[in-house]
Protein backbone atom coordinates (compact mmCIF):
# COMPACT_ATOMS: atom_id res chain seq x y z
CA UNK A 1 0.00 0.00 0.00
CA UNK A 2 2.78 2.34 0.90
CA UNK A 3 4.61 1.69 -2.29
CA UNK A 4 1.36 2.22 -4.25
CA UNK A 5 0.85 5.55 -2.50
CA UNK A 6 4.45 6.51 -3.08
CA UNK A 7 4.10 5.60 -6.72
CA UNK A 8 1.18 8.03 -7.16
CA UNK A 9 2.97 10.76 -5.25
CA UNK A 10 5.86 10.24 -7.58
CA UNK A 11 3.50 10.65 -10.54
CA UNK A 12 2.31 13.98 -9.16
CA UNK A 13 5.90 15.07 -8.75
CA UNK A 14 6.55 13.82 -12.26
CA UNK A 15 3.84 16.18 -13.54
CA UNK A 16 5.72 19.14 -12.15
CA UNK A 17 9.00 17.77 -13.44
CA UNK A 18 7.47 17.26 -16.88
CA UNK A 19 6.28 20.84 -16.98
CA UNK A 20 9.93 21.80 -16.62
CA UNK A 21 10.96 19.00 -18.95
CA UNK A 22 8.65 20.50 -21.55
CA UNK A 23 10.55 23.73 -21.24
CA UNK A 24 13.90 21.96 -21.42
CA UNK A 25 12.80 19.92 -24.44
CA UNK A 26 11.63 23.12 -26.05
CA UNK A 27 15.08 24.57 -25.46
CA UNK A 28 16.72 21.46 -26.89
CA UNK A 29 14.54 21.68 -30.01
CA UNK A 30 15.48 25.31 -30.37
CA UNK A 31 19.20 24.62 -30.07
CA UNK A 32 19.21 21.52 -32.29
CA UNK A 33 17.60 23.28 -35.24
CA UNK A 34 20.12 24.59 -37.75
CA UNK A 35 21.00 28.14 -36.80
CA UNK A 36 20.62 29.27 -40.42
CA UNK A 37 16.95 28.36 -40.36
CA UNK A 38 16.35 31.23 -37.95
CA UNK A 39 18.14 33.74 -40.16
CA UNK A 40 14.88 34.96 -41.73
CA UNK A 41 11.99 33.53 -39.75
CA UNK A 42 8.39 33.98 -40.83
CA UNK A 43 6.89 36.18 -38.16
CA UNK A 44 3.27 36.70 -37.20
CA UNK A 45 2.52 38.97 -34.31
CA UNK A 46 -0.53 40.69 -32.96
CA UNK A 47 -1.13 43.10 -30.11
CA UNK A 48 -4.70 43.76 -29.04
CA UNK A 49 -5.35 46.48 -26.49
CA UNK A 50 -8.87 46.60 -25.08
CA UNK A 51 -10.53 49.00 -22.69
CA UNK A 52 -13.91 47.88 -21.46
CA UNK A 53 -16.35 50.24 -19.80
CA UNK A 54 -19.34 49.15 -17.76
CA UNK A 55 -21.05 48.72 -14.41
CA UNK A 56 -22.05 45.71 -12.38
CA UNK A 57 -23.94 45.21 -9.15
CA UNK A 58 -21.40 42.83 -7.63
CA UNK A 59 -20.10 44.05 -4.24
CA UNK A 60 -16.87 45.98 -4.69
CA UNK A 61 -17.12 45.89 -8.47
CA UNK A 62 -19.41 48.75 -9.42
CA UNK A 63 -17.50 50.78 -11.98
CA UNK A 64 -15.36 48.64 -14.21
CA UNK A 65 -12.71 49.93 -16.59
CA UNK A 66 -10.42 46.95 -17.14
CA UNK A 67 -7.58 47.53 -19.58
CA UNK A 68 -6.30 44.41 -21.32
CA UNK A 69 -3.28 43.70 -23.42
CA UNK A 70 -3.21 40.50 -25.46
CA UNK A 71 -0.07 39.43 -27.27
CA UNK A 72 0.22 36.65 -29.82
CA UNK A 73 3.44 35.75 -31.54
CA UNK A 74 4.56 33.00 -33.86
CA UNK A 75 7.98 32.50 -35.39
CA UNK A 76 8.66 29.86 -38.01
CA UNK A 77 12.13 29.10 -39.23
CA UNK A 78 12.92 28.42 -42.87
CA UNK A 79 11.75 25.01 -44.01
CA UNK A 80 14.42 22.44 -44.73
CA UNK A 81 13.15 19.40 -46.67
CA UNK A 82 9.66 20.31 -45.49
CA UNK A 83 10.71 20.27 -41.83
CA UNK A 84 10.09 23.38 -39.82
CA UNK A 85 10.48 24.65 -36.30
CA UNK A 86 7.99 27.16 -34.90
CA UNK A 87 7.59 29.06 -31.68
CA UNK A 88 4.10 30.05 -30.55
CA UNK A 89 3.28 32.40 -27.72
CA UNK A 90 0.01 33.88 -26.50
CA UNK A 91 -0.73 35.67 -23.26
CA UNK A 92 -2.58 38.53 -21.68
CA UNK A 93 -2.44 41.00 -18.84
CA UNK A 94 -5.10 43.14 -17.20
CA UNK A 95 -5.08 46.27 -15.09
CA UNK A 96 -8.24 47.68 -13.54
CA UNK A 97 -8.56 51.43 -13.96
CA UNK A 98 -11.76 51.43 -11.89
CA UNK A 99 -12.96 48.92 -9.32
CA UNK A 100 -11.49 45.45 -9.09
CA UNK A 101 -13.07 43.33 -11.80
CA UNK A 102 -12.17 39.89 -10.37
CA UNK A 103 -10.42 37.99 -7.63
CA UNK A 104 -9.67 40.88 -5.28
CA UNK A 105 -6.81 41.84 -7.56
CA UNK A 106 -6.37 45.00 -9.59
CA UNK A 107 -4.03 43.25 -11.99
CA UNK A 108 -3.97 39.79 -13.48
CA UNK A 109 -2.54 37.88 -16.41
CA UNK A 110 -1.86 34.46 -17.81
CA UNK A 111 0.04 32.54 -20.44
CA UNK A 112 -2.50 31.02 -22.82
CA UNK A 113 0.03 29.01 -24.76
CA UNK A 114 3.76 28.99 -25.25
CA UNK A 115 5.41 26.11 -27.02
CA UNK A 116 7.97 25.05 -29.58
CA UNK A 117 6.71 22.89 -32.40
CA UNK A 118 8.79 20.82 -34.77
CA UNK A 119 6.93 19.64 -37.87
CA UNK A 120 8.39 17.05 -40.18
CA UNK A 121 7.67 17.26 -43.89
CA UNK A 122 6.67 13.60 -43.93
CA UNK A 123 4.17 11.51 -41.97
CA UNK A 124 2.32 14.48 -40.46
CA UNK A 125 4.79 14.13 -37.64
CA UNK A 126 4.97 16.83 -35.01
CA UNK A 127 6.63 17.29 -31.63
CA UNK A 128 5.48 20.06 -29.31
CA UNK A 129 7.03 21.11 -26.02
CA UNK A 130 5.63 23.69 -23.64
CA UNK A 131 2.17 25.02 -22.72
CA UNK A 132 -0.25 23.84 -25.36
CA UNK A 133 -3.78 22.73 -26.14
CA UNK A 134 -4.09 19.03 -26.96
CA UNK A 135 -7.12 17.69 -28.81
CA UNK A 136 -6.87 13.93 -29.19
CA UNK A 137 -10.10 11.99 -28.74
CA UNK A 138 -11.18 12.15 -25.10
CA UNK A 139 -8.49 14.73 -24.41
CA UNK A 140 -9.42 18.37 -24.83
CA UNK A 141 -6.68 19.41 -22.52
CA UNK A 142 -4.34 22.28 -21.90
CA UNK A 143 -1.08 21.12 -20.42
CA UNK A 144 2.52 22.06 -19.73
CA UNK A 145 4.41 19.19 -21.24
CA UNK A 146 5.15 17.17 -24.32
CA UNK A 147 3.10 16.07 -27.32
CA UNK A 148 4.15 13.73 -30.13
CA UNK A 149 2.20 12.67 -33.19
CA UNK A 150 2.99 10.77 -36.38
CA UNK A 151 1.43 8.73 -39.13
CA UNK A 152 2.52 5.11 -38.97
CA UNK A 153 2.40 2.52 -41.72
CA UNK A 154 -0.72 0.86 -43.16
CA UNK A 155 -3.05 3.77 -42.42
CA UNK A 156 -2.32 3.93 -38.70
CA UNK A 157 -1.34 7.04 -36.78
CA UNK A 158 -0.53 7.61 -33.14
CA UNK A 159 -0.32 10.54 -30.73
CA UNK A 160 0.85 10.74 -27.12
CA UNK A 161 1.05 13.49 -24.54
CA UNK A 162 2.26 13.87 -20.99
CA UNK A 163 2.54 16.80 -18.63
CA UNK A 164 0.97 18.92 -15.97
CA UNK A 165 -2.68 19.95 -16.60
CA UNK A 166 -3.45 23.65 -16.74
CA UNK A 167 -6.47 24.37 -14.56
CA UNK A 168 -7.42 27.93 -13.72
CA UNK A 169 -9.22 29.19 -10.63
CA UNK A 170 -10.46 25.79 -9.46
CA UNK A 171 -13.09 25.65 -6.70
CA UNK A 172 -11.95 22.15 -5.86
CA UNK A 173 -8.63 20.35 -5.89
CA UNK A 174 -7.48 19.75 -9.44
CA UNK A 175 -5.16 17.22 -11.02
CA UNK A 176 -1.43 17.77 -11.35
CA UNK A 177 -0.27 15.06 -13.73
CA UNK A 178 -1.85 13.88 -16.97
CA UNK A 179 -0.90 11.59 -19.80
CA UNK A 180 -2.66 9.84 -22.62
CA UNK A 181 -2.77 9.12 -26.29
CA UNK A 182 -4.77 8.19 -29.32
CA UNK A 183 -4.32 5.62 -32.08
CA UNK A 184 -6.21 5.97 -35.33
CA UNK A 185 -6.71 4.06 -38.52
CA UNK A 186 -7.70 5.89 -41.68
CA UNK A 187 -8.63 5.05 -45.21
CA UNK A 188 -8.25 8.25 -47.16
CA UNK A 189 -11.61 9.69 -48.22
CA UNK A 190 -13.60 7.04 -46.34
CA UNK A 191 -13.00 6.92 -42.62
CA UNK A 192 -10.88 7.63 -39.59
CA UNK A 193 -11.43 5.54 -36.48
CA UNK A 194 -9.74 6.53 -33.24
CA UNK A 195 -9.22 4.97 -29.83
CA UNK A 196 -8.01 7.25 -27.07
CA UNK A 197 -7.33 7.28 -23.37
CA UNK A 198 -6.44 9.82 -20.70
CA UNK A 199 -5.22 9.36 -17.15
CA UNK A 200 -4.62 12.01 -14.53
CA UNK A 201 -3.77 12.18 -10.86
CA UNK A 202 -4.18 14.74 -8.10
CA UNK A 203 -1.40 13.90 -5.68
CA UNK A 204 -2.00 10.29 -4.76
CA UNK A 205 -5.64 10.32 -5.96
CA UNK A 206 -6.88 8.72 -9.16
CA UNK A 207 -8.42 11.80 -10.73
CA UNK A 208 -9.52 11.14 -14.29
CA UNK A 209 -9.44 7.87 -16.20
CA UNK A 210 -11.24 8.20 -19.49
CA UNK A 211 -11.30 6.08 -22.62
CA UNK A 212 -13.04 6.78 -25.86
CA UNK A 213 -13.66 5.93 -29.46
CA UNK A 214 -14.15 8.52 -32.15
CA UNK A 215 -14.94 8.34 -35.82
CA UNK A 216 -15.27 10.21 -39.05
CA UNK A 217 -16.99 8.11 -41.67
CA UNK A 218 -17.78 9.05 -45.27
CA UNK A 219 -18.78 6.01 -47.34
CA UNK A 220 -19.85 8.36 -50.12
CA UNK A 221 -18.91 11.98 -50.67
CA UNK A 222 -22.42 13.20 -49.90
CA UNK A 223 -22.55 11.58 -46.46
CA UNK A 224 -20.41 11.86 -43.39
CA UNK A 225 -20.83 10.70 -39.82
CA UNK A 226 -18.75 12.07 -36.98
CA UNK A 227 -18.90 11.21 -33.33
CA UNK A 228 -17.38 10.13 -30.10
CA UNK A 229 -18.18 7.93 -27.12
CA UNK A 230 -16.28 8.33 -23.88
CA UNK A 231 -16.17 6.13 -20.80
CA UNK A 232 -15.24 7.06 -17.24
CA UNK A 233 -13.28 4.23 -15.65
CA UNK A 234 -13.32 5.86 -12.23
CA UNK A 235 -17.12 6.00 -12.01
CA UNK A 236 -17.45 2.99 -14.32
CA UNK A 237 -20.04 4.62 -16.55
CA UNK A 238 -20.40 6.08 -20.03
CA UNK A 239 -19.87 9.82 -19.95
CA UNK A 240 -21.19 10.69 -23.36
CA UNK A 241 -22.23 9.42 -26.76
CA UNK A 242 -22.30 12.21 -29.35
CA UNK A 243 -22.80 11.54 -33.05
CA UNK A 244 -23.68 13.74 -36.00
CA UNK A 245 -24.73 12.70 -39.50
CA UNK A 246 -24.60 15.10 -42.45
CA UNK A 247 -26.11 14.39 -45.84
CA UNK A 248 -25.51 16.64 -48.82
CA UNK A 249 -27.62 15.25 -51.69
CA UNK A 250 -26.92 18.32 -53.85
CA UNK A 251 -24.58 21.29 -53.58
CA UNK A 252 -27.51 23.40 -52.44
CA UNK A 253 -29.09 21.13 -49.88
CA UNK A 254 -27.82 19.73 -46.61
CA UNK A 255 -29.61 17.55 -44.10
CA UNK A 256 -28.20 16.87 -40.67
CA UNK A 257 -29.08 14.94 -37.54
CA UNK A 258 -27.37 14.50 -34.21
CA UNK A 259 -27.70 12.42 -31.11
CA UNK A 260 -26.09 13.12 -27.77
CA UNK A 261 -26.54 11.21 -24.55
CA UNK A 262 -24.87 12.58 -21.43
CA UNK A 263 -24.79 10.84 -18.06
CA UNK A 264 -24.23 13.71 -15.63
CA UNK A 265 -22.70 11.67 -12.81
CA UNK A 266 -19.97 10.35 -15.09
CA UNK A 267 -19.57 13.37 -17.37
CA UNK A 268 -19.22 16.05 -14.69
CA UNK A 269 -17.19 13.88 -12.32
CA UNK A 270 -14.01 15.98 -12.43
CA UNK A 271 -14.96 19.52 -13.35
CA UNK A 272 -13.25 22.09 -11.15
CA UNK A 273 -16.02 24.68 -10.93
CA UNK A 274 -18.93 24.36 -8.54
CA UNK A 275 -21.12 25.85 -11.27
CA UNK A 276 -21.05 22.38 -12.85
CA UNK A 277 -20.99 20.14 -9.80
CA UNK A 278 -24.68 20.80 -9.08
CA UNK A 279 -24.20 21.20 -5.33
CA UNK A 280 -27.14 23.58 -5.31
CA UNK A 281 -29.31 20.70 -6.61
CA UNK A 282 -30.94 22.97 -9.22
CA UNK A 283 -29.97 20.09 -11.50
CA UNK A 284 -30.02 16.55 -10.20
CA UNK A 285 -26.44 15.18 -10.36
CA UNK A 286 -27.90 11.84 -11.41
CA UNK A 287 -29.64 13.34 -14.44
CA UNK A 288 -29.34 11.77 -17.89
CA UNK A 289 -30.04 13.77 -21.04
CA UNK A 290 -30.78 12.23 -24.41
CA UNK A 291 -30.81 15.00 -27.01
CA UNK A 292 -31.96 14.32 -30.55
CA UNK A 293 -31.70 17.03 -33.15
CA UNK A 294 -31.81 17.61 -36.84
CA UNK A 295 -32.38 20.11 -39.54
CA UNK A 296 -32.08 21.17 -43.10
CA UNK A 297 -29.94 23.81 -44.76
CA UNK A 298 -30.66 25.19 -48.23
CA UNK A 299 -28.45 27.48 -50.29
CA UNK A 300 -30.56 28.76 -53.21
CA UNK A 301 -27.72 31.02 -54.41
CA UNK A 302 -24.17 31.45 -53.27
CA UNK A 303 -24.03 33.55 -50.10
CA UNK A 304 -27.62 32.87 -49.02
CA UNK A 305 -28.49 30.09 -46.57
CA UNK A 306 -31.86 29.07 -45.16
CA UNK A 307 -31.81 26.77 -42.15
CA UNK A 308 -34.49 25.04 -40.11
CA UNK A 309 -33.54 23.06 -37.02
CA UNK A 310 -35.10 21.08 -34.20
CA UNK A 311 -33.73 19.62 -30.96
CA UNK A 312 -35.48 17.51 -28.37
CA UNK A 313 -34.08 16.99 -24.86
CA UNK A 314 -35.42 13.94 -23.10
CA UNK A 315 -34.33 14.01 -19.46
CA UNK A 316 -34.57 11.07 -17.13
CA UNK A 317 -35.50 13.25 -14.13
CA UNK A 318 -36.47 16.74 -15.36
CA UNK A 319 -39.23 17.28 -17.87
CA UNK A 320 -38.48 17.24 -21.58
CA UNK A 321 -37.75 20.31 -23.70
CA UNK A 322 -38.11 21.12 -27.39
CA UNK A 323 -36.11 23.80 -29.23
CA UNK A 324 -36.92 24.59 -32.84
CA UNK A 325 -36.73 27.41 -35.32
CA UNK A 326 -35.23 28.81 -38.48
CA UNK A 327 -32.56 31.16 -39.73
CA UNK A 328 -31.87 33.17 -42.86
CA UNK A 329 -28.26 34.20 -43.46
CA UNK A 330 -26.63 36.29 -46.17
CA UNK A 331 -22.87 36.22 -46.23
CA UNK A 332 -20.62 37.98 -48.72
CA UNK A 333 -17.18 38.04 -47.09
CA UNK A 334 -15.62 41.47 -46.59
CA UNK A 335 -18.68 43.17 -48.12
CA UNK A 336 -21.97 42.47 -46.45
CA UNK A 337 -23.56 40.04 -44.02
CA UNK A 338 -27.07 39.99 -42.65
CA UNK A 339 -29.42 37.52 -41.13
CA UNK A 340 -32.26 36.78 -38.80
CA UNK A 341 -33.50 33.87 -36.77
CA UNK A 342 -36.49 32.87 -34.69
CA UNK A 343 -36.43 29.98 -32.23
CA UNK A 344 -38.94 28.64 -29.78
CA UNK A 345 -38.08 26.80 -26.57
CA UNK A 346 -40.85 24.67 -25.10
CA UNK A 347 -39.75 23.16 -21.82
CA UNK A 348 -41.25 21.79 -18.67
CA UNK A 349 -40.70 24.88 -16.52
CA UNK A 350 -41.38 28.61 -16.92
CA UNK A 351 -37.78 29.64 -17.72
CA UNK A 352 -37.80 27.05 -20.51
CA UNK A 353 -40.74 28.57 -22.37
CA UNK A 354 -39.63 31.46 -24.54
CA UNK A 355 -39.24 32.90 -28.03
CA UNK A 356 -35.80 33.96 -29.16
CA UNK A 357 -35.26 36.46 -31.97
CA UNK A 358 -32.09 37.69 -33.57
CA UNK A 359 -31.44 40.18 -36.38
CA UNK A 360 -28.00 41.32 -37.49
CA UNK A 361 -26.33 43.20 -40.31
CA UNK A 362 -22.73 44.03 -41.07
CA UNK A 363 -21.47 46.23 -43.91
CA UNK A 364 -18.04 47.29 -45.09
CA UNK A 365 -17.42 50.83 -46.31
CA UNK A 366 -13.91 50.79 -47.67
CA UNK A 367 -11.56 50.73 -44.68
CA UNK A 368 -14.48 50.90 -42.22
CA UNK A 369 -17.18 48.47 -41.25
CA UNK A 370 -20.30 48.76 -39.16
CA UNK A 371 -22.31 46.02 -37.43
CA UNK A 372 -25.70 46.04 -35.76
CA UNK A 373 -26.90 43.06 -33.76
CA UNK A 374 -30.20 42.67 -31.90
CA UNK A 375 -31.07 39.69 -29.71
CA UNK A 376 -34.37 39.39 -27.87
CA UNK A 377 -35.65 36.62 -25.61
CA UNK A 378 -39.33 36.88 -24.75
CA UNK A 379 -40.47 34.58 -21.94
CA UNK A 380 -44.03 33.30 -21.64
CA UNK A 381 -44.05 34.28 -17.98
CA UNK A 382 -41.93 36.55 -15.85
CA UNK A 383 -38.48 35.37 -14.87
CA UNK A 384 -37.91 34.73 -11.20
CA UNK A 385 -35.44 37.64 -11.00
CA UNK A 386 -37.11 41.06 -10.82
CA UNK A 387 -40.17 39.97 -12.77
CA UNK A 388 -38.54 40.58 -16.12
CA UNK A 389 -40.34 38.99 -19.05
CA UNK A 390 -38.45 40.42 -22.01
CA UNK A 391 -34.65 40.43 -22.22
CA UNK A 392 -32.83 42.09 -25.08
CA UNK A 393 -29.46 43.42 -26.09
CA UNK A 394 -28.63 45.62 -29.03
CA UNK A 395 -25.04 46.09 -30.11
CA UNK A 396 -23.48 48.59 -32.46
CA UNK A 397 -19.89 47.96 -33.45
CA UNK A 398 -17.58 49.82 -35.77
CA UNK A 399 -14.02 49.32 -36.94
CA UNK A 400 -11.62 51.38 -39.03
CA UNK A 401 -8.51 49.98 -40.66
CA UNK A 402 -5.99 52.81 -40.32
CA UNK A 403 -3.37 50.84 -42.19
CA UNK A 404 -3.10 47.22 -43.23
CA UNK A 405 -1.60 46.50 -39.82
CA UNK A 406 -3.54 48.83 -37.55
CA UNK A 407 -7.26 48.65 -36.79
CA UNK A 408 -9.24 50.73 -34.32
CA UNK A 409 -12.64 49.51 -33.17
CA UNK A 410 -15.36 50.38 -30.71
CA UNK A 411 -18.70 48.99 -29.74
CA UNK A 412 -21.63 49.80 -27.48
CA UNK A 413 -24.11 47.36 -25.95
CA UNK A 414 -27.45 48.46 -24.63
CA UNK A 415 -29.49 45.84 -22.83
CA UNK A 416 -32.44 45.25 -20.59
CA UNK A 417 -32.13 42.16 -18.43
CA UNK A 418 -33.10 40.82 -15.00
CA UNK A 419 -30.14 42.58 -13.42
CA UNK A 420 -30.42 46.01 -15.07
CA UNK A 421 -33.33 48.02 -16.47
CA UNK A 422 -30.95 49.87 -18.75
CA UNK A 423 -27.41 48.63 -19.04
CA UNK A 424 -24.82 50.26 -21.25
CA UNK A 425 -21.42 48.74 -21.88
CA UNK A 426 -18.66 49.89 -24.15
CA UNK A 427 -15.41 48.63 -25.53
CA UNK A 428 -12.50 50.34 -27.27
CA UNK A 429 -10.01 48.22 -29.12
CA UNK A 430 -6.74 48.77 -30.98
CA UNK A 431 -5.19 45.93 -32.95
CA UNK A 432 -1.68 46.05 -34.35
CA UNK A 433 -0.69 43.02 -36.37
CA UNK A 434 1.97 41.71 -38.65
CA UNK A 435 1.42 38.46 -40.46
CA UNK A 436 4.05 37.19 -42.85
CA UNK A 437 1.74 34.30 -43.78
CA UNK A 438 -0.53 36.83 -45.47
CA UNK A 439 2.19 37.91 -47.85
CA UNK A 440 1.04 36.20 -51.02
CA UNK A 441 -0.01 32.95 -49.44
CA UNK A 442 -2.91 31.48 -47.52
CA UNK A 443 -4.60 33.47 -44.86
CA UNK A 444 -3.86 32.87 -41.21
CA UNK A 445 -7.09 33.64 -39.41
CA UNK A 446 -6.91 34.87 -35.82
Amino acid at each position, binding site marked *: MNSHHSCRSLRAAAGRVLAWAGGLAAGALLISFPAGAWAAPEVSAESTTILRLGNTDFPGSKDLYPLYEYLHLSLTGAETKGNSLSLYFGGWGRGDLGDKSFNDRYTDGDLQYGFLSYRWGRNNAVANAGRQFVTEGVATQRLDGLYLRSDLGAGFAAAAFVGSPVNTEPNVKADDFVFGGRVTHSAAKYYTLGVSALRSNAGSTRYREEEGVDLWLSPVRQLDV*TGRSSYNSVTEGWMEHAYTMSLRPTDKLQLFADLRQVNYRDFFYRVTTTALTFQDRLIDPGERDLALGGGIGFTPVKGVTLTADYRHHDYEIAREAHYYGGKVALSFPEKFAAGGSVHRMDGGSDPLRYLEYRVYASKSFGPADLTLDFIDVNYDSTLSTNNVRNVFVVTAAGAYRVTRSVTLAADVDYSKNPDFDNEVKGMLKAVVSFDAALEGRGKSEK
Partner: protein
Amino acid sequence: MKNSKLLILLAALATAGSLVACAGTTTVARVHPEAVTGMPDCTECHQDSWGAFNHKAPDFMLKHKVFANSRQACASCHAEAFCADCHAHKEEIKPSDKYKDAPERFLPHRGDYLAQHKIDGRVDPASCVACHGRQNNEGCKRCHR
Protein backbone atom coordinates in the same frame (compact mmCIF):
# COMPACT_ATOMS: atom_id res chain seq x y z
CA MET B 1 13.20 -8.05 -14.45
CA LYS B 2 14.87 -4.75 -15.26
CA ASN B 3 16.41 -6.28 -18.36
CA SER B 4 13.06 -7.58 -19.62
CA LYS B 5 11.43 -4.14 -19.17
CA LEU B 6 14.31 -2.55 -21.01
CA LEU B 7 13.96 -5.07 -23.82
CA ILE B 8 10.21 -4.40 -24.06
CA LEU B 9 10.88 -0.66 -24.20
CA LEU B 10 13.52 -1.07 -26.88
CA ALA B 11 11.26 -3.38 -28.88
CA ALA B 12 8.41 -0.86 -28.65
CA LEU B 13 10.67 1.96 -29.78
CA ALA B 14 12.02 -0.14 -32.65
CA THR B 15 8.49 -1.09 -33.72
CA ALA B 16 7.34 2.53 -33.54
CA GLY B 17 10.39 3.64 -35.50
CA SER B 18 9.73 1.03 -38.18
CA LEU B 19 6.08 2.01 -38.44
CA VAL B 20 6.97 5.69 -38.78
CA ALA B 21 9.54 4.82 -41.43
CA CYS B 22 6.90 2.83 -43.33
CA ALA B 23 4.24 5.57 -43.31
CA GLY B 24 5.59 7.66 -46.15
CA THR B 25 2.71 10.16 -46.14
CA THR B 26 3.15 13.81 -47.02
CA THR B 27 2.44 16.29 -44.25
CA VAL B 28 -0.49 18.65 -44.86
CA ALA B 29 0.48 22.14 -45.98
CA ARG B 30 1.57 24.37 -43.12
CA VAL B 31 -0.13 27.34 -44.77
CA HIS B 32 -3.20 26.91 -46.95
CA PRO B 33 -2.00 27.56 -50.53
CA GLU B 34 -5.03 29.68 -51.43
CA ALA B 35 -6.20 32.71 -49.46
CA VAL B 36 -9.44 32.01 -47.60
CA THR B 37 -11.74 34.79 -46.45
CA GLY B 38 -14.68 34.49 -44.09
CA MET B 39 -16.14 31.10 -43.34
CA PRO B 40 -15.25 28.86 -46.27
CA ASP B 41 -17.36 26.26 -48.00
CA CYS B 42 -14.53 23.79 -48.52
CA THR B 43 -16.58 21.82 -51.06
CA GLU B 44 -16.20 24.69 -53.53
CA CYS B 45 -12.68 23.43 -54.21
CA HIS B 46 -12.31 20.10 -52.42
CA GLN B 47 -14.16 17.14 -53.86
CA ASP B 48 -12.40 14.76 -51.46
CA SER B 49 -12.57 14.28 -47.68
CA TRP B 50 -11.49 17.90 -47.02
CA GLY B 51 -14.95 18.93 -48.20
CA ALA B 52 -16.33 17.65 -44.89
CA PHE B 53 -14.67 20.65 -43.21
CA ASN B 54 -17.27 22.94 -44.83
CA HIS B 55 -17.52 25.71 -42.21
CA LYS B 56 -20.85 26.91 -43.57
CA ALA B 57 -22.56 23.62 -42.82
CA PRO B 58 -25.26 24.24 -40.21
CA ASP B 59 -23.85 21.46 -38.04
CA PHE B 60 -20.17 22.44 -38.33
CA MET B 61 -20.05 23.73 -34.75
CA LEU B 62 -21.25 20.35 -33.47
CA LYS B 63 -18.64 18.51 -35.51
CA HIS B 64 -15.63 20.76 -34.96
CA LYS B 65 -14.56 18.84 -31.84
CA VAL B 66 -13.98 15.75 -33.97
CA PHE B 67 -12.27 17.68 -36.77
CA ALA B 68 -10.04 19.29 -34.13
CA ASN B 69 -8.31 15.92 -33.83
CA SER B 70 -6.64 16.97 -37.12
CA ARG B 71 -5.04 20.06 -35.64
CA GLN B 72 -2.47 20.35 -38.42
CA ALA B 73 -5.27 20.78 -40.94
CA CYS B 74 -6.89 23.51 -38.79
CA ALA B 75 -3.51 25.22 -38.41
CA SER B 76 -3.11 25.69 -42.15
CA CYS B 77 -5.71 28.49 -41.92
CA HIS B 78 -6.09 29.26 -38.23
CA ALA B 79 -3.51 30.73 -35.88
CA GLU B 80 -3.07 29.05 -32.49
CA ALA B 81 -4.88 32.02 -30.93
CA PHE B 82 -8.06 31.01 -32.73
CA CYS B 83 -8.54 27.93 -30.51
CA ALA B 84 -7.16 29.68 -27.44
CA ASP B 85 -9.74 32.45 -27.53
CA CYS B 86 -12.43 30.03 -26.34
CA HIS B 87 -10.54 27.00 -25.07
CA ALA B 88 -7.69 28.63 -23.16
CA HIS B 89 -7.84 30.90 -20.19
CA LYS B 90 -8.84 34.29 -21.54
CA GLU B 91 -10.40 35.91 -18.51
CA GLU B 92 -13.55 37.90 -18.92
CA ILE B 93 -13.44 38.72 -22.60
CA LYS B 94 -16.62 36.90 -23.45
CA PRO B 95 -17.09 35.23 -26.82
CA SER B 96 -19.82 37.82 -27.36
CA ASP B 97 -16.98 40.29 -27.83
CA LYS B 98 -15.36 38.03 -30.37
CA TYR B 99 -16.43 38.55 -33.98
CA LYS B 100 -18.91 41.28 -33.25
CA ASP B 101 -17.83 42.45 -36.67
CA ALA B 102 -18.72 39.03 -38.15
CA PRO B 103 -22.13 38.30 -36.67
CA GLU B 104 -22.84 35.50 -39.12
CA ARG B 105 -20.44 33.28 -37.19
CA PHE B 106 -22.00 30.93 -34.71
CA LEU B 107 -20.94 31.59 -31.15
CA PRO B 108 -22.59 30.24 -28.04
CA HIS B 109 -22.59 33.50 -26.07
CA ARG B 110 -23.92 36.25 -28.29
CA GLY B 111 -25.55 39.11 -26.44
CA ASP B 112 -25.87 39.54 -22.72
CA TYR B 113 -25.30 36.02 -21.50
CA LEU B 114 -25.59 36.53 -17.75
CA ALA B 115 -29.37 36.13 -17.86
CA GLN B 116 -29.45 33.46 -20.54
CA HIS B 117 -26.76 31.24 -19.02
CA LYS B 118 -29.17 30.18 -16.28
CA ILE B 119 -31.53 28.90 -18.93
CA ASP B 120 -28.98 27.28 -21.24
CA GLY B 121 -27.16 25.83 -18.24
CA ARG B 122 -30.24 23.90 -17.24
CA VAL B 123 -31.01 22.72 -20.74
CA ASP B 124 -27.53 21.49 -21.67
CA PRO B 125 -24.85 21.98 -18.99
CA ALA B 126 -22.55 19.52 -20.78
CA SER B 127 -22.02 22.10 -23.53
CA CYS B 128 -20.29 24.37 -20.97
CA VAL B 129 -17.58 21.88 -20.02
CA ALA B 130 -15.16 22.13 -22.94
CA CYS B 131 -14.48 25.82 -22.21
CA HIS B 132 -15.47 26.23 -18.55
CA GLY B 133 -15.15 22.80 -16.92
CA ARG B 134 -11.57 23.25 -15.76
CA GLN B 135 -10.70 26.79 -16.80
CA ASN B 136 -12.27 30.16 -17.61
CA ASN B 137 -14.00 29.98 -14.24
CA GLU B 138 -13.50 33.52 -12.94
CA GLY B 139 -16.98 34.61 -13.90
CA CYS B 140 -18.51 31.44 -12.41
CA LYS B 141 -16.79 31.97 -9.05
CA ARG B 142 -18.53 35.26 -8.43
CA CYS B 143 -21.76 33.43 -7.68
CA HIS B 144 -20.88 29.69 -7.67
CA ARG B 145 -18.61 29.41 -4.63
